[in-house]
């Protein structure tokens, strides 16, 4: 497996607050990297730094051999990295289909082609409701699906999923996990932030754990879930994922 993305000592300061502190880790082509940690640990900030919504205070982000830190998000999307939003940022004043068309327009010049691609993508994620209605009418699961569809339509090499399973029932989580695995089959590299440990453990090839903006563990799911710092800060000694 070859490395596709690497963060080197990436730091982000907001005024006096250090959101991310010297984070260094790599992601391999085609793998699913899980990212875990308590709230406020800097996970979303790391995503934002990668896609270009923030500029790192320090450090480098290297994608396929070239440095991308500080580039605007639309350029990074063009290069092949995009994300979904934790607080869902759908285009509520546009029909559902149009939301995905916007993403598809990145790789398809003609609107007609983009619309066709958008339809295909929505089918791929198993989207069922009426695509001419407004996103505001959707339930949580479908909204998450739409977010993923929109990001997927941009034809990314790396897709960052930020807590897409938040609020889902166990059945829905299973469906989501299947969908994410399906994405990997297409050759997309995935970085997944989730609090749902079952999902993360079953999905991830590797896991990176964060706390207070710093990476505290990096390795296979078994290694990370038994790491003392991870247990202390996040899992808790009673967690079923901790081997006794």
């Amino acid at each position, binding site marked *: 497996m070859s490395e596709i993305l690497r963060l080197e000592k990436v730091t982000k300061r907001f005024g006096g607050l250090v959101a991310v502190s010297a984070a260094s880790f790599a992601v391999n082509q085609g793998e699913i990297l899980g990212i875990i940690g308590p709230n406020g640990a800097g996970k979303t900030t790391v995503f934002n730094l990668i896609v270009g919504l923030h500029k790192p205070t320090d450090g480098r982000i290297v994608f396929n051999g070239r440095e991308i830190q500080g580039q605007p998000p639309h350029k990074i999307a063009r290069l092949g990295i995009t994300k979904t939003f934790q607080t869902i940022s*759908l*285009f509520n004043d546009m029909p559902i289909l149009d939301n995905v068309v916007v993403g598809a327009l*990145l790789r398809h*010049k003609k609107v007609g082609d983009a619309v066709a691609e958008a339809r295909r993508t929505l089918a791929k994620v198993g989207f069922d409701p009426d695509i001419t209605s407004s996103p505001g009418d959707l339930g949580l699961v479908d909204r998450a699906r739409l977010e993923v569809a929109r990001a997927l339509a941009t034809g990314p090499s790396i897709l960052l999923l930020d807590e897409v399973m938040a609020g889902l029932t166990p059945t829905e989580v299973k469906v989501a996990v299947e969908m994410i695995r399906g994405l990997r089959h297409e050759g997309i590299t995935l970085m997944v932030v989730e609090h749902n440990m079952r999902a993360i453990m079953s999905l991830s090839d590797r896991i990176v754990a964060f706390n207070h903006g710093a990476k505290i563990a990096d390795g296979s799911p078994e290694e990370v879930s038994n790491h003392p710092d991870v247990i202390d800060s996040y899992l808790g000694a009673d967690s079923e994922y901790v081997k006794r």
Partner: protein
Amino acid sequence: MNPAQNPDRLKFVYWAILAAVLLLPPLIFENRGYYLRIATLVLMFAGLGGAWNIIGGFANQVSLGHAAFFGVGAYTSTLLLKFFGISPWLGMVAAAVIAGLLSLMIAVPTFRLRGHYFALGTIAFAEVLRVLFLYFKGITEGPVGLSVPYLGDSFWHFQFRGNLGYYFTALTLLSLTCFVAYRVKVGRLGYQLRALSNSHEAAEVVGVDTYRAKLWASLLSSMLTGAWGTFYAQYLYFIDPDTVFGFWTFSVKMAMVVILGGLGTIWGPLVGSAILIPLDEWTSAVFTGNLSAVSRLIYGGLLIALILWQPRGLLFWFTEMSERRRRKRRSLGNPETETGA
């Protein structure tokens, strides 16, 4: 026959009605008369509204300073005519180009601004131009204003006897404006503008170059506005900074027409203009002298009422009504019920 079952026929009917409505005034009104003049002004404000709509309606960048482009357009062609004898038609092209360049200049400081800040920035620019054009009397004659030199009625001179020639010119320019607006709306740019007006961040993350999209919208909007400025100068034969760069006279009015008719729609500006301009003229005619402020008062009152009742404009209200009726009809006639609202 249910018209919904035959959309092509319905479309044809709509276009036929539109054509009839637009071609009616020159047929029934006197060439030099008052009514044809109002009709021409309706077309002009529909065009101005349509141009404003491209960035104010499609991209939700509320500009309160579009008079900047309008005034620059009006002065460009008039000064070119006055000093170099250049035909106003060429002047119109130059006007559009200069207005476009101006919008690019303005874009740099204002595009990072959102919402209210952007509106304030645009007001400032229009005011700067107004002050500058008032000040440099040597070129622009200042507050006294500039008369468009009378060269004789001819197409080449862009001067017509009566209103007829102007009406058809306006109709052509309006068609161009609507065409541009339509192409923007259904094309890539339209999708990008709608996306960024919903969420700048999300649009960027899925690959929309928001700066470029707004720049294009601003460019198209300002160029069209500049061209209309030339039209205005040639129609009214007289321009002065306080009017053509005026906040109330043009900036607010061209936006109001769209707000009334329907933000982000193609026909909204025409609908809004068809209501507002005759109303404006009528109140000005009825309430003269000391009571001239009444027309403004009515305007303002109407705008308030409209915003409280239907902030998106009449066409939205109309389409919502017909959507609801259509859904009702569908669910009544269909054993399967509609999902969603």
